[in-house]
């Protein structure tokens, strides 16, 4: 995890809020550093994490996790981390009997229906079990990323329903957290992506948006990070709070600064 991001979000692993849906969004840049941040953050916070990893292999996440101070292999072995490795299991699905339910069952269907098997997988992975051992702090679902489901043929309403159910079960019932990454293609004609992004934004409590700079690629500034707090528990402020920072990702840390109108100098 990046301690600088914790400072911006005003949170620590020990004092992480519960019952929240966090939306990660990227536009014209790669927002996967946010996924790695939250993965290591919640592992360090002693939460039980279900990681739906559809984009990269497990070893990739493990490698980046080690730079950030967590070992995914260890976490998986002791039961803290459950990973659905999309790249591997998408191939497995075609070599097993059709009667066995599979989280990515929609890949076998002619018209991709709903994501109920995937939700069932998440529910089984995170369901709190009453056993005598030290319980994990709270369940966390992390998805990287939801836009892949759109490109695999799932409709945006089906993805929204999946997130709705995860929110109802993980956030509301079990007081856990859900973190999901969505890409903003910026393409005005991609209506499905817009519906998914806007629909998720309405459901989210916290939105982190990583954008490329409007002026183009820059060696010293990788992008701009916008943070928006939505749906506070008490509507004390009439509007939501937002912050903007420019960031540069280094090997094990991230450097953030406030944007300024003066010519950039780091």
């Amino acid at each position: 995890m990046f301690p600088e991001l914790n400072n911006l979000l005003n949170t620590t692993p020990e004092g992480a809020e519960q019952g929240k849906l966090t939306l990660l969004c990227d536009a014209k840049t790669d927002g996967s550093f946010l996924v790695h941040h939250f993965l290591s953050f919640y592992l360090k916070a002693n939460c039980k994490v279900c990681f739906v990893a559809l984009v990269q292999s497990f070893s990739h996440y493990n490698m980046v996790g080690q730079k950030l101070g967590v070992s995914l292999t260890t976490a998986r072995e002791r039961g803290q981390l459950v990973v659905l490795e999309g790249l591997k299991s998408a191939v497995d699905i075609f070599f097993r009997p059709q009667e066995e339910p599979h989280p990515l069952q929609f890949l076998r269907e002619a018209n991709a229906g709903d994501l109920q098997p995937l939700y069932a997988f998440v529910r089984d992975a995170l369901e709190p079990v009453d056993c005598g051992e030290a319980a994990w702090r709270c369940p966390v679902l992390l998805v990287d990323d939801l836009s892949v489901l759109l490109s695999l043929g799932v409709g945006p309403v089906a993805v929204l329903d999946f997130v709705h159910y995860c929110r109802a079960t993980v956030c509301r019932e079990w007081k856990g957290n859900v973190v999901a990454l969505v890409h903003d293609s910026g393409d005005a004609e991609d209506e499905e992506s817009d519906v998914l992004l806007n629909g998720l934004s309405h459901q989210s409590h916290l939105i982190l948006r990583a954008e490329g700079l409007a002026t183009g690629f820059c060696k010293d500034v990788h992008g701009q990070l916008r943070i928006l707090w939505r749906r506070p528990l008490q509507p004390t402020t009439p509007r939501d709070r937002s912050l903007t920072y420019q960031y540069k990702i280094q090997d094990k840390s991230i450097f953030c600064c406030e944007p300024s109108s003066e010519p950039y100098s780091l």
Partner: protein
Amino acid sequence: RHLSPRLTPSEGLARPPPPPTDNCPNGSFRPSHGKIVERGVVPTCVYQHSRGTIPREPSWDSVEWEGRSLLKALVKKSALCGEQVHVLGCEVSEEEFREGFDSSINNRLVYHDLFRDPLSWSKPGKALPGGPLEALRALDKRTGSGPATIALDSLSWLLHHLPCPILCQTLHALSRQDSCPGDTLPGEQVRVLGLLHEELHGPGPLGALSSLAQTEVTLSGTMGQASAHILYRRPRQRPTLQTQWFSILPDFSLELQVEPLLESQPPSDLHTPSVDPTTHLTFNLHLSKKEREAKDSLTLPFQFSSEKQQALLRPGLGQATSHIFYEPDAYDDLDQEDPDDDLDV
């Protein structure tokens, strides 16, 4: 202090006037059958936290003005007027919706939970029987005698899960309680409020729902202040558009406000004196009075002058309908021969 302008619809509306013992507090901001439309793309724009101006991109920078607070404020008003309120909750849980209401309002509020298990995915079924459509249709059977309000949170969720024509028909049936509209007693009127997220739908469904609604409230805002653009559609009258600035207090009371004065200059301009760029030049950019007059009275060469206009308006006998007015100058060589004569075509 706040203003409380009368915003109730006047006599022209088909809805009967409210009963005399109307003890609603805080004036009146009560749309009858209304739809609250959220506008603007999430999330908020960048305003404080940077000294300079940041270029605004229209797809991101419009502030997201969420409508659920206003829906809850209207629900609270209806409950305080003694009406029973039925909420079909699809997007938030019951605890979250009831949060902020005191017990007197919560006692009048019946929450029909479509949030926990709307599609019957859970193993021990917690779903409402029949799914979303039946839950919606069942609402009109549940409202007993007496005025009632039905709040749909949200119409967007229903529009995603039900076909648009069926949703529109069901909404229409919901707002007409009995089959003889002429016999509707004032006490049995049902008010239907719906929350709609505008960015999630195309113009077709939006237009269909708009045509059903008697009042449409679109939320936006500027400079930290929320505003509602209210469109009243009355039968046999022109729709009227009104803008009302408001804020919602922590206990979901609605406070109407005066329009904030727009500042024409940002504060930073006070510190930098404006410089006239036309001073200290080696050439003259200004015009004297005579020069200005000469410039204004100049006719441009291709201007449609009055002579040309007259000639065109009164075509001469035997003349072609189009004329070319050409004044040759000294260097012109007018040759009347056809240059293509030598072609053997």
